[in-house]
Protein backbone atom coordinates (compact mmCIF):
# COMPACT_ATOMS: atom_id res chain seq x y z
CA UNK A 1 0.00 0.00 0.00
CA UNK A 2 1.23 3.52 -0.73
CA UNK A 3 2.29 5.78 2.10
CA UNK A 4 -0.18 8.55 2.84
CA UNK A 5 1.27 11.93 3.58
CA UNK A 6 -0.22 12.96 6.92
CA UNK A 7 0.47 15.73 9.40
CA UNK A 8 -0.78 15.84 12.97
CA UNK A 9 -1.32 19.18 14.68
CA UNK A 10 -1.88 19.94 18.33
CA UNK A 11 -2.76 23.29 19.90
CA UNK A 12 -1.63 24.46 23.34
CA UNK A 13 -2.73 27.55 25.23
CA UNK A 14 -0.80 29.71 27.65
CA UNK A 15 -1.08 33.21 29.03
CA UNK A 16 1.97 35.37 29.53
CA UNK A 17 3.09 38.95 29.80
CA UNK A 18 5.82 40.69 27.86
CA UNK A 19 7.26 44.06 26.96
CA UNK A 20 8.82 44.80 23.60
CA UNK A 21 11.98 46.76 24.25
CA UNK A 22 15.39 46.64 22.55
CA UNK A 23 18.29 47.75 24.73
CA UNK A 24 20.19 48.76 21.58
CA UNK A 25 17.64 51.47 20.83
CA UNK A 26 17.11 54.80 22.64
CA UNK A 27 13.98 55.18 24.80
CA UNK A 28 12.47 57.46 22.15
CA UNK A 29 13.23 55.04 19.34
CA UNK A 30 11.81 52.12 21.41
CA UNK A 31 8.54 54.01 21.82
CA UNK A 32 8.52 54.83 18.13
CA UNK A 33 9.16 51.26 17.01
CA UNK A 34 7.15 49.31 19.56
CA UNK A 35 4.40 51.82 20.41
CA UNK A 36 2.12 50.68 23.25
CA UNK A 37 3.97 47.33 23.37
CA UNK A 38 6.84 49.33 24.91
CA UNK A 39 4.79 50.50 27.92
CA UNK A 40 7.16 50.07 30.87
CA UNK A 41 5.24 47.53 32.94
CA UNK A 42 4.36 45.23 30.05
CA UNK A 43 1.08 43.69 29.02
CA UNK A 44 -0.10 40.17 28.21
CA UNK A 45 -1.77 37.81 25.79
CA UNK A 46 -3.53 34.47 25.64
CA UNK A 47 -1.20 32.70 23.26
CA UNK A 48 -2.14 29.70 21.14
CA UNK A 49 0.79 27.54 20.04
CA UNK A 50 0.04 25.03 17.29
CA UNK A 51 2.71 22.47 16.46
CA UNK A 52 2.54 20.26 13.37
CA UNK A 53 4.41 16.97 13.02
CA UNK A 54 4.97 14.63 10.10
CA UNK A 55 6.04 11.06 10.19
CA UNK A 56 5.10 7.62 9.04
CA UNK A 57 1.89 6.31 10.57
CA UNK A 58 2.59 3.37 12.83
CA UNK A 59 0.31 0.66 11.38
CA UNK A 60 -0.20 -0.88 14.82
CA UNK A 61 -1.52 2.32 16.41
CA UNK A 62 -2.71 4.34 13.42
CA UNK A 63 -0.79 7.30 14.82
CA UNK A 64 1.94 9.71 13.67
CA UNK A 65 2.92 10.12 17.32
CA UNK A 66 1.84 9.23 20.82
CA UNK A 67 -0.33 12.18 21.83
CA UNK A 68 0.10 11.52 25.55
CA UNK A 69 3.88 11.68 25.06
CA UNK A 70 3.57 14.95 23.13
CA UNK A 71 1.24 16.48 25.74
CA UNK A 72 3.61 15.48 28.50
CA UNK A 73 6.56 16.94 26.56
CA UNK A 74 4.62 20.17 25.98
CA UNK A 75 3.64 20.37 29.64
CA UNK A 76 7.25 20.10 30.77
CA UNK A 77 8.96 22.13 28.09
CA UNK A 78 6.40 24.72 27.02
CA UNK A 79 3.53 25.19 29.45
CA UNK A 80 5.43 24.88 32.74
CA UNK A 81 7.99 27.57 31.84
CA UNK A 82 5.73 29.85 29.75
CA UNK A 83 2.24 29.82 31.30
CA UNK A 84 1.60 32.74 33.64
CA UNK A 85 5.17 33.90 33.17
CA UNK A 86 6.73 37.17 32.09
CA UNK A 87 8.43 36.23 28.82
CA UNK A 88 11.15 38.87 29.28
CA UNK A 89 12.39 36.99 32.36
CA UNK A 90 12.86 33.66 30.55
CA UNK A 91 16.40 32.70 29.47
CA UNK A 92 15.51 32.81 25.76
CA UNK A 93 14.40 36.44 25.98
CA UNK A 94 16.95 37.99 28.31
CA UNK A 95 18.76 39.41 25.26
CA UNK A 96 16.08 38.91 22.61
CA UNK A 97 12.88 40.92 22.16
CA UNK A 98 9.92 38.63 22.97
CA UNK A 99 8.01 39.32 19.78
CA UNK A 100 5.85 36.48 18.52
CA UNK A 101 8.36 36.05 15.67
CA UNK A 102 11.10 35.31 18.20
CA UNK A 103 8.68 33.22 20.26
CA UNK A 104 8.11 31.08 17.14
CA UNK A 105 11.85 30.46 16.88
CA UNK A 106 12.08 29.46 20.56
CA UNK A 107 9.03 27.17 20.30
CA UNK A 108 10.57 25.63 17.16
CA UNK A 109 13.81 25.01 19.09
CA UNK A 110 11.86 23.39 21.95
CA UNK A 111 9.73 21.05 19.84
CA UNK A 112 12.53 19.93 17.51
CA UNK A 113 13.74 18.13 20.67
CA UNK A 114 10.59 15.97 20.72
CA UNK A 115 12.11 12.64 19.74
CA UNK A 116 9.23 10.72 18.17
CA UNK A 117 8.21 12.68 15.05
CA UNK A 118 9.49 15.40 12.74
CA UNK A 119 8.40 18.97 13.49
CA UNK A 120 7.10 20.67 10.34
CA UNK A 121 5.46 23.90 11.45
CA UNK A 122 5.02 26.19 14.42
CA UNK A 123 1.97 28.45 14.25
CA UNK A 124 1.42 30.96 17.05
CA UNK A 125 -1.61 33.16 17.55
CA UNK A 126 -0.78 36.11 19.78
CA UNK A 127 -4.33 37.43 19.60
CA UNK A 128 -7.32 36.43 17.51
CA UNK A 129 -6.05 38.85 14.86
CA UNK A 130 -2.30 38.09 14.82
CA UNK A 131 -0.79 34.79 13.71
CA UNK A 132 2.76 33.75 12.85
CA UNK A 133 4.11 30.65 11.10
CA UNK A 134 7.66 29.34 11.25
CA UNK A 135 9.29 26.23 9.81
CA UNK A 136 12.96 26.68 10.65
CA UNK A 137 15.03 26.70 7.46
CA UNK A 138 12.02 25.66 5.36
CA UNK A 139 9.43 27.97 3.85
CA UNK A 140 6.40 27.85 6.17
CA UNK A 141 2.89 27.18 5.03
CA UNK A 142 0.07 28.98 6.77
CA UNK A 143 -1.12 27.07 9.83
CA UNK A 144 -4.78 27.80 9.24
Amino acid at each position, binding site marked *: *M*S*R*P*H*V*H*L*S*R*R*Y*HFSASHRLHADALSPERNREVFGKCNNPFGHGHNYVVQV*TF*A*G*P*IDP*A*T*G*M*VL*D*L*AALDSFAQTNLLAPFDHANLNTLPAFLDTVPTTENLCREVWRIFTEFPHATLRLVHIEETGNNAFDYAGEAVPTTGN
Partner: protein
Amino acid sequence: MLLLTRKADFSAAHFYWNPAWSEAENLRVFGRCANRQGHGHNYTLEVTVAGEVDPVTGFVVDLKQLKDILESEVVSVFDHRHLNHEVPEFMPTAAAPLVPTTENLAIAIWRRLEGKVPHARLHRVRVYEMPDLFADCFGEGVA
Protein backbone atom coordinates in the same frame (compact mmCIF):
# COMPACT_ATOMS: atom_id res chain seq x y z
CA MET B 1 -4.68 28.06 -9.31
CA LEU B 2 -7.02 28.68 -6.42
CA LEU B 3 -7.78 26.74 -3.27
CA LEU B 4 -11.33 26.32 -2.04
CA THR B 5 -12.30 24.82 1.32
CA ARG B 6 -15.64 23.41 2.37
CA LYS B 7 -16.44 22.32 5.93
CA ALA B 8 -18.78 19.63 7.17
CA ASP B 9 -19.48 18.26 10.63
CA PHE B 10 -20.20 14.80 11.88
CA SER B 11 -20.45 13.19 15.30
CA ALA B 12 -19.30 9.65 15.84
CA ALA B 13 -18.18 7.13 18.43
CA HIS B 14 -14.96 5.13 18.38
CA PHE B 15 -12.34 3.36 20.45
CA TYR B 16 -8.74 2.37 19.81
CA TRP B 17 -7.87 -1.29 19.90
CA ASN B 18 -5.27 -3.44 18.20
CA PRO B 19 -6.54 -7.05 18.14
CA ALA B 20 -2.95 -8.34 17.77
CA TRP B 21 -2.17 -7.04 21.26
CA SER B 22 -3.10 -8.16 24.77
CA GLU B 23 -5.64 -6.15 26.74
CA ALA B 24 -2.83 -4.85 28.96
CA GLU B 25 -0.83 -3.65 25.95
CA ASN B 26 -3.90 -1.93 24.45
CA LEU B 27 -4.57 -0.16 27.74
CA ARG B 28 -0.92 0.85 28.08
CA VAL B 29 -0.71 2.33 24.57
CA PHE B 30 -4.20 3.74 24.08
CA GLY B 31 -5.18 4.60 27.66
CA ARG B 32 -8.78 5.76 28.02
CA CYS B 33 -9.25 5.53 24.25
CA ALA B 34 -9.14 1.73 24.62
CA ASN B 35 -12.47 1.61 26.50
CA ARG B 36 -14.32 -0.82 24.27
CA GLN B 37 -17.69 0.70 25.01
CA GLY B 38 -16.41 3.60 22.92
CA HIS B 39 -16.55 7.35 23.35
CA GLY B 40 -17.31 10.10 20.87
CA HIS B 41 -16.43 13.40 19.31
CA ASN B 42 -17.90 16.19 17.24
CA TYR B 43 -15.64 16.03 14.23
CA THR B 44 -15.13 18.86 11.77
CA LEU B 45 -14.05 18.00 8.27
CA GLU B 46 -12.37 20.58 6.02
CA VAL B 47 -11.88 19.58 2.41
CA THR B 48 -9.66 21.79 0.26
CA VAL B 49 -9.68 21.44 -3.52
CA ALA B 50 -7.38 23.12 -6.03
CA GLY B 51 -8.40 24.26 -9.47
CA GLU B 52 -8.76 27.06 -11.94
CA VAL B 53 -11.61 29.55 -11.86
CA ASP B 54 -14.12 28.90 -14.65
CA PRO B 55 -14.33 32.18 -16.57
CA VAL B 56 -18.06 31.85 -17.11
CA THR B 57 -19.30 30.76 -13.68
CA GLY B 58 -16.48 32.24 -11.59
CA PHE B 59 -16.36 28.91 -9.70
CA VAL B 60 -13.51 26.48 -9.08
CA VAL B 61 -16.18 23.92 -8.24
CA ASP B 62 -19.89 24.21 -7.70
CA LEU B 63 -20.11 24.47 -3.90
CA LYS B 64 -23.50 22.79 -3.81
CA GLN B 65 -22.07 19.87 -5.76
CA LEU B 66 -19.07 19.68 -3.39
CA LYS B 67 -21.42 19.78 -0.40
CA ASP B 68 -23.47 16.93 -1.89
CA ILE B 69 -20.31 14.85 -2.45
CA LEU B 70 -19.18 15.39 1.16
CA GLU B 71 -22.65 14.42 2.32
CA SER B 72 -22.92 11.25 0.25
CA GLU B 73 -19.31 10.03 0.56
CA VAL B 74 -18.57 10.98 4.18
CA VAL B 75 -21.23 12.55 6.38
CA SER B 76 -24.00 10.07 5.54
CA VAL B 77 -21.57 7.20 6.30
CA PHE B 78 -19.87 8.61 9.43
CA ASP B 79 -22.45 10.80 11.17
CA HIS B 80 -24.01 9.35 14.32
CA ARG B 81 -22.26 6.04 13.74
CA HIS B 82 -19.81 3.95 15.72
CA LEU B 83 -16.71 3.96 13.50
CA ASN B 84 -15.40 0.58 14.75
CA HIS B 85 -18.74 -1.15 14.17
CA GLU B 86 -20.37 0.65 11.26
CA VAL B 87 -17.79 2.24 8.94
CA PRO B 88 -16.14 -0.36 6.69
CA GLU B 89 -12.52 0.89 6.82
CA PHE B 90 -12.43 0.52 10.60
CA MET B 91 -14.47 -2.66 11.04
CA PRO B 92 -12.90 -6.01 11.93
CA THR B 93 -14.31 -7.35 8.66
CA ALA B 94 -12.00 -5.06 6.60
CA ALA B 95 -9.02 -6.69 4.87
CA ALA B 96 -6.68 -4.43 6.86
CA PRO B 97 -8.81 -2.66 9.48
CA LEU B 98 -7.58 0.81 10.40
CA VAL B 99 -7.54 2.04 14.00
CA PRO B 100 -9.97 5.01 13.85
CA THR B 101 -7.43 7.65 14.86
CA THR B 102 -7.69 11.19 13.52
CA GLU B 103 -4.79 10.39 11.17
CA ASN B 104 -6.56 7.34 9.74
CA LEU B 105 -9.87 9.21 9.43
CA ALA B 106 -8.08 11.80 7.28
CA ILE B 107 -6.63 9.02 5.10
CA ALA B 108 -9.93 7.13 4.81
CA ILE B 109 -11.79 10.31 3.87
CA TRP B 110 -9.08 11.23 1.34
CA ARG B 111 -9.52 7.82 -0.31
CA ARG B 112 -13.30 8.22 -0.36
CA LEU B 113 -13.09 11.65 -2.03
CA GLU B 114 -10.16 11.24 -4.40
CA GLY B 115 -11.32 11.51 -8.00
CA LYS B 116 -14.90 12.34 -6.96
CA VAL B 117 -14.74 16.13 -7.28
CA PRO B 118 -15.20 17.21 -10.90
CA HIS B 119 -12.96 19.95 -12.36
CA ALA B 120 -10.72 20.12 -9.30
CA ARG B 121 -7.90 18.24 -7.60
CA LEU B 122 -8.14 17.19 -3.98
CA HIS B 123 -5.50 19.23 -2.14
CA ARG B 124 -5.98 18.57 1.57
CA VAL B 125 -8.32 16.70 3.88
CA ARG B 126 -8.27 18.06 7.42
CA VAL B 127 -10.12 16.31 10.23
CA TYR B 128 -10.56 18.00 13.60
CA GLU B 129 -11.29 15.54 16.38
CA MET B 130 -11.58 18.55 18.66
CA PRO B 131 -10.56 22.18 18.22
CA ASP B 132 -7.05 21.51 19.59
CA LEU B 133 -6.29 18.33 17.65
CA PHE B 134 -6.39 17.74 13.93
CA ALA B 135 -4.76 15.73 11.15
CA ASP B 136 -4.11 16.71 7.54
CA CYS B 137 -3.86 14.23 4.66
CA PHE B 138 -2.20 15.45 1.46
CA GLY B 139 -2.63 12.23 -0.46
CA GLU B 140 -0.53 9.19 -1.06
CA GLY B 141 3.17 9.39 -1.78
CA VAL B 142 6.16 10.63 0.13
CA ALA B 143 5.52 10.84 3.85
